[in-house]
């Protein structure tokens, strides 16, 4: 693990590590009045615990002028996350769990100065259960293999990080093509996904906010 730093605050060079253990983050926040949005005087502990019993991780950061590339990969191993929402006067305590296992699972996030665009890619195999956190109504884990044919470019016009204006992703044998029209969020900006599923058909989805909770996500839900 090299110590060389670049001005943006990232360590340069590649690392390869075996990680074991946990990080538990506690954020002490007020409760919020649903009708007024005002914070309570009391503070409550919201806990998130990330853990692994031996994951093989690699990654790298490289910079070229103002352009940069961040790579992160889970070569093998499993990560689990547990969220504990505290008991508050108007809300019960809740515990949500999710986990995923990667096999050669990697992502890249690049910033291209020439186009002033971020782009992301995801490749490799994942098995995971995100059902409690993202209400998909499914039971058990899913396994997918990803291959990014063309990096997914992030729209600079959206407030949302994962709002793609270009790119192509293969999921097993299905192909998702991303595009966007418009330039103003909540006025005319719309993200489009064209999903081709071999032997089944071609499907179109539009979204205007967060991709994980839009009509596209609804299509993936197991139960209504």
């Amino acid at each position, binding site marked *: 693990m090299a110590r060389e730093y670049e001005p943006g605050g990232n360590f340069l060079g590649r690392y390869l590590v075996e990680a074991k253990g946990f990080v538990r983050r506690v954020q002490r926040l007020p409760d919020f009045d649903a009708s007024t949005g005002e914070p309570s005087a009391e503070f409550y502990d919201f806990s998130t615990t990330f853990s692994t019993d031996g994951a093989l991780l690699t990654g790298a950061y490289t910079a070229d002028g103002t352009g940069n590339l961040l790579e992160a990969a889970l070569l093998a191993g499993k990560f689990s996350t547990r969220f504990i929402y505290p008991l508050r006067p108007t809300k019960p305590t809740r515990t949500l769990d999710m986990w995923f296992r990667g096999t050669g699972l990697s992502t890249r996030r690049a910033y291209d100065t020439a186009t002033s665009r971020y782009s992301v890619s995801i490749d490799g195999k994942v098995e995971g259960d995100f059902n409690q956190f993202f209400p998909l109504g499914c039971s058990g884990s899913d396994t997918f293999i990803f291959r990014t044919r063309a990096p997914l470019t992030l729209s600079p016009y959206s407030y949302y990080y994962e709002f793609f204006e270009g790119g192509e992703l293969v999921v*097993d044998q299905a192909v998702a093509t991303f595009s966007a029209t418009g330039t103003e969020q909540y006025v005319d900006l719309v993200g489009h996904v064209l999903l081709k599923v071999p032997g089944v058909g071609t499907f179109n989805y539009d979204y205007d906010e967060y991709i994980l909770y839009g009509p596209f996500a609804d299509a993936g839900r197991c139960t209504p």
Partner: protein
Amino acid sequence: MFKPFHRICLVALSLSLSGALFAAGATPANTEQRAARGVNTAVVAHGQLLEVEGQFVFGSRQTIDAALDQLNAATTFTALLAPGGVTLNCPESGTLNARISNLWLRTLKLEWSHCVSVEFSSRNDIDGPAEVTLAENSLAPGMVLSIRLGDLSRDHVLDSRPETPGPWFGG
């Protein structure tokens, strides 16, 4: 207020990466529902990988990097060979103790005792043990070989809160 508790062990490896690391084995995304869920999962996995990198790797490296800078500015590798090591005062209050527990393995033991500093309007209090394997006999090594935050019985805890508590954060 933000407070991470760590018990992390990071061991640097020097394997070369080669060949395909996975083979087909997934149930194919052969329905609209499953393919759509697959794309959603790709977006989630991207975010989770960045989260893992930030929580487990970057944060650990940053903690140890800052400690090495603090030690290198105030003492020497040789001084840390003393049985009790060296204890430094932290910027606001508390201490950081450092000692080389195994010269052959270059094992650096660190012990923060409510070591408080202020950075970016945030008051940071670090408490607990850590262990680092240095790559050379220096407090300014180009790299480290392993990092362990916390130990079998104790967490490494960073308590971070704004200097000026407000209604939204800082309870």
